[in-house]
Each structure stands twice: as structure tokens, then as C-alpha cells.
């Protein structure tokens, strides 16, 4: 198929605003009469609140109010489990829980007021390790729950006892992963305006999921959804991170806006952001794998324990994704998987790009290399003997047949891109000196979109104005990934208009139907289909009208470049004239689009069913140099091959790959949020290092396209798969180079040198 706009690296529609400084982010917003608010957060990971003294703060200059949990209509919220406190009431459950908030004429006055507040705590013993938290007799953390378990997802397939009996080789290994900070460059910011245009409150700001935030604010205020309006502004990165933490912020600001009758702005400093935001889940993973001496897997038994921290947040769903991906993309007859999440008094953990897959992939793809070594097979060979191909059946019993299973293709293409075979052979030989090179790979399959987590549907609205300009609204939100551009391309493609005629409008929950959250790499796939649906409805109307007017059959007509053509290539009318005339004759020139994903199924007791309607496949390869004298690790080259179905915008896909690979590199070799007895050690970028431009390896992105029958123009997902593979590939390359197998992330200097962390917070 020849495309006009789709499958092209067209420029971002939001680029102009972003290169000129005109783009308004949360902290840039101002409203007349606006107040500023700050939150006092506890330093204790677990304590009873005995007394709060606010009188002195209330008398401070400029202060308009000081509020506690008592002032919050409904203090508990949460997307899955409603256990998160807007402000801590009787107990603080993690260091960083907000306790009191103050609103004043200026930010400095609000901050000064916090200094005058006295909170008396009774410190309680805390639980800081999920492996402790799960023990019988462990201190119970959440009132009303008789243990600390947030969730348990079992999966049972075949008979693992039998599978291990058939094995010639059995390996048992433990792996651990760390807390990770999202490190979106823009700290959280919201402004809540009361009583604007018939809404009780309007919430503006850097909000990842406007509908989730609307749900939270309406629940906290105990008002109807229609009274709360959420308008998304430019958002300075999110990666799953600006959901619950921003909802809490919006709810607090909303309470204060209503109490004072004035707009209230809240902006986190970087330190506040580190202290209060949720993190990526650390996992403790135990794998047992059996294989025949020919290298055929016979059984896998897996236990994954996730630290949920003080709140449940997204733990139930994050760990669910782990269950589906825990065995990796391999055919195994006998599988037993148990994934758990437990409360602790650590920082709470939630959604972060990857969502429960990077942890299990690190373990399982490291394990595959360990097994290959044990069997005397090359890593690629062991994978080839077991990986999914067309028609394979997954651990949950799903037959992969609706889409192209392209593991072999992505692996082959990644290997070619980095010259794997030659390098593997070369580095497998003797290397003189301290500096040793190695190369390692990892592969994955990943379910697209929400899967059995929730109803998976999205909406759009497209309006054609009298002059032929096209306004596009989506219920999914731009997070920086390029959604506005992708959706504009899809609308332009279907309607046959130039991109310049398409205007993407900011998301406003009062106008666009609830489409769920912009998560799970679902925007292009689900939201893109909704845009296509609306555009096709309009196109249908236009074609019917034109066929009638010009006396042609619909099939003979074509919309292209802003014109209507007959079959002979003659222009019959401009898009603007044609659609303008339609509007004047009373034809509705706007349409709702809706897309609901194909059916899926899941049996939570057995862990079986078809959890996702389609999957993407990826392979990443890392080439490293390890200085065995100093432990210094240098990632020199990486190749990343991803099947995206169809790249709506290949330049954008490359951007996702570069960005995801670098985030995966941070996860793999440098990042670790050090948490000591529940308290974060170091809350800014000088303590917590993310990759800089100097840490870049040479990255070779490889886009593989096998159009998906259910994707818009065949497109699937790319956001998350890009970061889930890197850490295992690097760990495998390090083992190849140095002979040292590291089973804990990150693979930093001391682990590479002596095999364990030196500092206390590390595992």
C-alpha cells in the first residue's frame, strides 16, 4: 500500500512550540488571583500521628489556610485498591507521606508556614523487605488487612515435577532488581481553578492520565465526575510516573481551591518529587529451570516477589504482567509461576515504562545464558531451540496465530546489525590484558495494551470545520512520545488532507470520552484505531455525498492532498469546498470514533487464557568492554530490533528506541535509588545518576514491520519493549567478557569487580 502520511517520518506537530519555549508546562501556568501551596511530608517510614499543631502556621504572613486529613472529604483513593491517603490521617506508612498542607499568597510564604507546623509522632517499627513482610507473624501494616499481601498471581501449566524429572540439567538461580526513579525531567506540577465554566474544579497540569486524575479528584471531593474537568498541558516526561502522585497533588490542590475560592498551584521541587513519587518495583526472583541435554526446556518454576511499598498502587497489575512474561518467549510444557506483591514501609511502587517486565526479563534472559553455558550451547542456539514461532503455545495456553510471530526475524536482524557472530567468536577466545570484550543478547515477547487488566477501549472525536480544517480530539494523552503527531498522521491519511490541515487539540475530560489511561504502549494501537474509526465515518459521509453530487460510484472517487478526484485523476473539488457544502446542507461534519480491542480471557486461579490479543517481539544485543582490574564497564555498542507491526512514523519509532535503550542502560548499569530503612538516601540528580550524553553507546535501531491485523494500518506498540531488554543483554555481555555472572542490578563497578555491592542500601 502506498501511504501519503503514514509510515513517514513527518515532523512532530508540537515541535514548534517546544523549540521556541512557547509550550506551557504545568509550572508555567498562571491564573489571576492564584495561590501557592506546599505539603509537609513525614520523615518517618512508619509512625502514629499523635498531634498536629497548626495555629502558628495559620498566623504567618500571606497564609490562607492550613489543612490536614480532617479537611479532606474522602481521604482514600487508588486506581485499583483505594488505600492511598491524600494526607496521612492516623498513621504514616512511608517516609514521604504528606501530613499537612499550607496555602499562601506566595510559594515562599507557604514554605515558611510549614516550618511552624509541629507534628508529634510515635515511631513504630517498620518492615522494609517484602521477604520479611510476607512472613507469618510479620508486623501488619494496613488496618483492616490480616496480612501484608497485596496480590498473588499463580500460573500452572502441565506438571513441573514431571518436567524436572525429564530434565538432564536443572539450574536454580536467584536474581534481584532495584528501586528506580522515573526521573522525568519535569517535576510534578498542577493548578486547580475553582468554579470555572460550570465546573466545580478545573485541574491543569502535567498529568499523564487525565481520566484517572479526574476519578481520583472526584472521589476525594465526593462530587460527580461531571463537576471535575481535567485539562492536560505539555508534560515533561512521565514514563508511567505522573499518575497517582499527580492525582494526590491535584486532589490536595482541589481541596484548597474550594476552601479558599481561588486557584491553587502546586509545584514539586526535585527533592519533593524524589521523596513523594512512586518508584519501579524491586523484585526478588527465584528461577528453577530444567532442560534436556539437547537443550529442550522441560520445566520452569518461578517465584517473583515485588516490593509494593506503603501502598498497593499498581502492584496488582504490574505483577500480573510479570506472570505472563515470566517464562520469556519460550515453549515450556510445564510451568509453575507465582508472583506476589507485599506491603512494606518503603517508598511505594507503581507504573513505570516496562511495567513488571524488565525485572523478569533480566532474570529469565540471564538464566537462559547460564543454562546455555551449562549445556555447552551457544546462547543463540539455545534460544532457537525453544523460542516461540508461528502457532506456538504460551505458558498461559494461548496459541500465537493471529499475528506474525517474528522472534527469529528480530533476532537475526539485530545480530546482523551489530555483526554478532563474528564478535561472539572473537570475544569467546582468549583476550590478553585486563580489558575484555563481550557480547550478549536478550529477546522478548510482550503483550500489547492492557490485556486482561481492564476494559480496553478508546474514543476520539474529529470535526471538519467549514473551511476544511480538521480538529482531532483523543481520549488518550500526549506524554511526549509523539501521540499527537501519530494521530494527526492517521487522520490525514484517511481523510486525504495535508498534515497542515489537521489540528490536534489538547485533551479535556469534559469534551472527549473516557478512554482509560495512556499506558501499556496502547496509544497507537487502541487510540490510533479510534482515530481511524472517526475519520472513516466522516470519509464515508463525504464519499456518499460526492458520489451523489458528481454522479460517480463511491469506488471511483478518491480523497487525496486536499482534493476530491475521480478515477481518471481529474480534480472534482477541493476538500474544503466539498465539506463546506456538506455542512451547509445540514450534514453532521463531526464524528465519534470508538475502538474496543478483540476479546481476551484470563482465569486468575489457574493463570490461563489469552491475556493479550496481540504481541510484539524484540531483540537487543549489547557489546561491552570490562576492565577486570578496575571493574569499569563500558557499553560500546547496542543493537535493538523491534517488530512494531507498522511504523506510523519511523523517525518517531527510532526516537522511542534510542530513548528506551538509554533508559534500559540506566536500569542495567547505573541507576539505583538507595533506600535505607525506608528512607531514600539522596533526592536529586547528583546522588541518583541517570545516563548523560557521555554514557551513550553507539545504538543501532532496527525497525521490523509485520503489519498486525488488528492495528491501525498494521501498527502495534513500541514505547515499553525498548527498555525491557537492555539489562539482560548487558549482563550476558559482561558474563561473556569477564566470566563473572552478576545476578543483581545494577551491574555497577563494585558488582562487576567483586560480585556484590559495597554500600548498605544495595542488595
Amino acid at each position: 500500500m502506498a501511504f501519503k502520511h503514514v509510515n513517514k517520518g513527518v515532523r512532530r506537530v508540537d515541535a514548534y512550540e517546544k523549540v521556541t519555549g512557547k509550550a506551557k508546562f504545568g509550572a508555567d501556568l498562571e491564573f489571576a488571583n492564584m495561590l501557592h501551596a506546599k505539603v509537609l511530608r513525614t520523615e518517618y517510614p512508619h509512625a502514629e500521628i499523635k498531634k498536629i499543631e497548626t495555629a502558628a502556621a495559620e498566623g504567618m504572613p500571606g497564609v490562607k489556610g492550613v489543612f490536614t486529613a480532617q479537611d479532606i472529604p474522602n481521604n482514600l483513593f487508588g486506581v485499583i485498591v483505594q488505600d492511598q491517603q491524600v494526607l496521612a490521617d492516623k498513621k504514616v506508612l512511608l517516609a514521604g507521606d504528606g501530613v499537612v498542607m499550607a496555602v499562601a499568597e506566595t510559594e515562599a510564604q507557604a514554605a515558611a508556614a510549614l516550618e511552624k507546623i509541629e507534628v508529634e509522632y510515635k515511631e513504630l517499627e517498620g518492615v522494609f523487605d517484602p521477604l520479611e513482610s510476607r512472613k507469618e507473624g510479620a508486623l501488619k501494616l494496613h488496618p483492616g488487612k490480616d496480612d501484608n499481601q497485596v496480590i498473588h498471581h499463580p500460573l500452572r501449566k502441565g506438571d513441573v515435577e514431571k518436567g524436572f524429572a525429564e530434565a538432564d540439567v536443572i539450574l536454580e538461580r536467584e536474581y534481584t532488581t532495584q528501586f528506580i526513579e522515573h526521573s522525568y525531567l519535569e517535576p510534578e506540577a498542577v493548578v486547580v481553578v475553582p468554579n470555572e465554566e460550570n465546573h466545580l474544579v478545573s485541574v491543569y497540569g502535567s498529568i499523564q492520565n487525565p481520566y484517572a486524575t479526574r476519578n481520583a479528584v472526584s472521589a476525594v471531593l465526593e462530587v460527580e465526575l461531571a463537576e471535575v474537568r481535567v485539562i492536560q498541558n505539555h508534560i515533561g516526561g512521565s514514563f508511567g510516573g505522573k499518575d497517582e502522585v499527580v492525582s494526590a497533588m491535584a486532589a490536595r490542590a482541589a481541596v484548597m481551591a474550594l476552601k479558599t475560592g481561588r486557584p491553587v498551584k502546586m509545584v514539586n521541587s526535585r527533592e519533593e518529587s524524589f521523596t513523594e513519587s512512586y518508584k519501579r518495583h524491586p523484585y526478588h526472583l527465584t528461577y528453577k529451570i530444567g532442560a534436556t541435554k539437547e537443550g529442550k526446556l522441560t520445566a520452569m518454576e518461578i517465584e517473583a516477589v515485588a516490593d509494593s511499598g506503603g501502598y498497593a498502587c499498581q502492584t496488582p497489575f504490574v505483577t500480573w504482567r510479570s506472570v505472563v512474561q515470566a517464562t520469556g518467549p519460550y515453549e515450556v510444557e510445564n510451568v509453575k509461576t507465582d508472583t506476589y506483591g507485599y506491603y512494606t514501609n518503603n517508598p511505594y511502587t507503581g507504573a513505570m515504562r516496562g511495567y513488571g517486565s524488565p525485572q523478569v526479563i533480566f532474570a529469565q534472559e540471564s538464566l537462559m545464558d547460564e543454562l546455555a553455558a551449562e549445556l555447552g550451547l551457544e546462547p543463540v542456539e539455545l534460544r532457537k531451540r525453544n523460542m516461540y514461532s508461528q502457532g506456538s503455545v504460551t505458558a498461559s495456553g494461548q496459541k500465537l496465530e493471529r499475528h506474525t510471530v517474528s522472534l527469529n526475524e528480530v533476532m537475526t536482524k539485530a545480530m546482523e546489525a551489530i555483526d554478532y557472530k563474528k564478535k561472539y567468536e572473537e570475544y569467546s577466545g582468549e583476550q590478553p590484558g585486563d580489558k575484555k570484550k563481550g557480547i550478549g543478547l536478550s529477546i522478548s515477547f510482550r503483550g500489547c495494551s492492557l490485556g486482561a487488566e481492564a476494559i480496553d477501549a478508546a474514543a476520539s472525536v474529529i470535526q471538519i470545520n467549514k473551511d476544511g480544517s480538521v480538529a482531532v480530539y483523543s481520549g488518550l494523552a500526549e506524554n511526549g512520545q509523539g501521540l499527537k503527531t501519530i494521530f494527526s498522521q492517521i487522520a490525514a491519511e484517511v481523510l486525504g488532507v495535508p498534515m497542515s490541515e489537521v489540528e490536534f487539540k489538547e485533551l479535556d475530560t469534559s469534551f472527549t470520552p473516557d478512554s482509560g489511561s495512556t499506558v501499556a504502549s496502547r496509544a497507537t494501537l487502541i487510540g490510533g484505531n479510534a482515530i481511524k474509526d472517526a475519520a472513516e465515518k466522516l470519509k464515508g459521509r463525504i464519499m456518499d455525498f460526492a458520489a451523489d453530487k458528481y454522479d460517480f460510484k463511491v469506488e471511483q472517487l478518491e480523497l487525496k492532498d486536499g482534493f476530491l478526484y475521480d478515477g481518471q485523476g481529474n480534480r472534482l473539488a477541493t476538500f474544503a469546498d466539498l465539506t463546506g457544502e456538506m455542512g451547509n446542507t445540514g450534514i453532521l461534519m463531526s464524528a465519534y470514533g470508538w475502538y474496543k480491542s478483540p476479546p481476551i480471557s484470563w482465569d486468575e486461579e489457574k493463570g490461563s487464557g489469552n491475556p493479550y490479543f496481540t504481541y510484539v517481539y524484540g531483540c537487543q544485543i549489547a557489546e561491552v568492554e570490562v576492565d577486570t582490574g578496575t571493574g569499569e564497564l563500558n557499553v560500546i555498542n547496542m543493537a535493538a530490533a523491534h517488530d512494531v507491526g507498522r511504523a506510523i512514523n519511523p523517525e518517531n519509532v527510532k526516537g522511542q528506541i534510542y530513548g528506551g535503550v538509554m533508559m534500559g542502560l540506566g536500569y542495567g548499569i547505573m541507576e539505583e535509588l538507595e533506600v535505607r530503612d525506608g528512607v531514600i538516601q539522596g533526592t536529586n540528580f547528583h546522588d541518583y545518576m541517570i545516563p548523560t550524553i557521555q554514557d551513550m553507546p553507539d545504538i543501532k535501531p532496527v525497525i521490523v514491520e509485520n503489519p498486525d491485523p488488528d492495528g491501525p494500518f498494521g501498527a502495534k506498540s513500541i514505547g515499553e519493549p525498548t527498555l525491557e531488554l537492555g539489562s539482560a543483554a548487558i549482563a550476558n555481555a559482561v558474563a561473556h567478557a569477564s566470566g563473572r555472572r552478576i545476578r543483581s542490578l545494577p551491574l555497577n563497578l563494585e558488582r562487576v569487580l567483586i560480585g556484590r555491592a559495597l554500600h548498605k542500601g544495595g542488595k
Partner: protein
Amino acid sequence: MAKLDVEITVNGARHKLEVGSQERLLDTLREQLKMTGTKEGCSVGECGACTVIVDDQAVNSCLVLTAQVDGSEIITVEGLESKSGLHPLQKAFIEKQAIQCGFCTPGMLMSALALLNTNPTPTKEEIKTALEGNLCRCTGYQQIIDAVEMAAEEWGV
């Protein structure tokens, strides 16, 4: 708090201002002059989102007091576009898809501008050195490097 009189030129326009003795240049730009293109990401000089050019040098405006730059010429992201259109760097950032969320972009542009002003034909390593104080969590930096290389080429012509 004592107020000081300062005079600074921002993007060619002169401003006589009263500033607090501890007022950061970042706040003067964002709050007094309402130029919010310059961003605040960390406040401690680690992220580069607040980068502006002061007398030809790229600086973190979160670490500079306005009183210290009395009499200086300052360029911010708002000063890049001119009557003749977008600056070659802006065009290159758009062309090379060097932007995702866009929060680091103003600072990146300023660091790149300071580089090209003194070194119009930088090597890849020199570009990396010039941008090493600017964090970006979205792009993985590759397309930013591509953009600076492209701008250098176009500019040279």
C-alpha cells in the same frame, strides 16, 4: 529583604529591574519577566534544563544570582526565533526529531548555541562535551546530536 537595582539585556531588550539579593536568574526570567521557556528541573545545577547564555557562556540559571549578572547580555530560548524565521538549531531539532516531551529542549538549544557560537564545526565528541550537563530522559540523545551536527552544517553554509 534588601532589593537591588540591576539592568540586564535579555534577547536584545533592556530591563531595569529590582531584584532580591538572593534572587536567582531563573526566577527573574520566569517570574519577573514571565519568560517561562527556561525550565527548572533540579535547582542544583545537575540537569541543565535552566541553561541560558550569559555573555556568550552557557550557564545554569538556577545557580546564578541576578545581582551577579548586572549589566550582562542574556539569551534565552525565546530569543532564538527571529523575524527571518526559526534559528538553524531550532529547524534542525524539528527536522531530526530531537524533541520528545520538550522539557529539556530549551536548555539543550542554549548549550548547543553556545557551542556553535564559539566552535562552528564541532566534532561529535565536542558536541557531547558541550551537552554533557544537559539531561534528557526521553530521546536517548542520538537525535539531539544529529540535530546539532545538521545545524552546524547548515549554519556554516
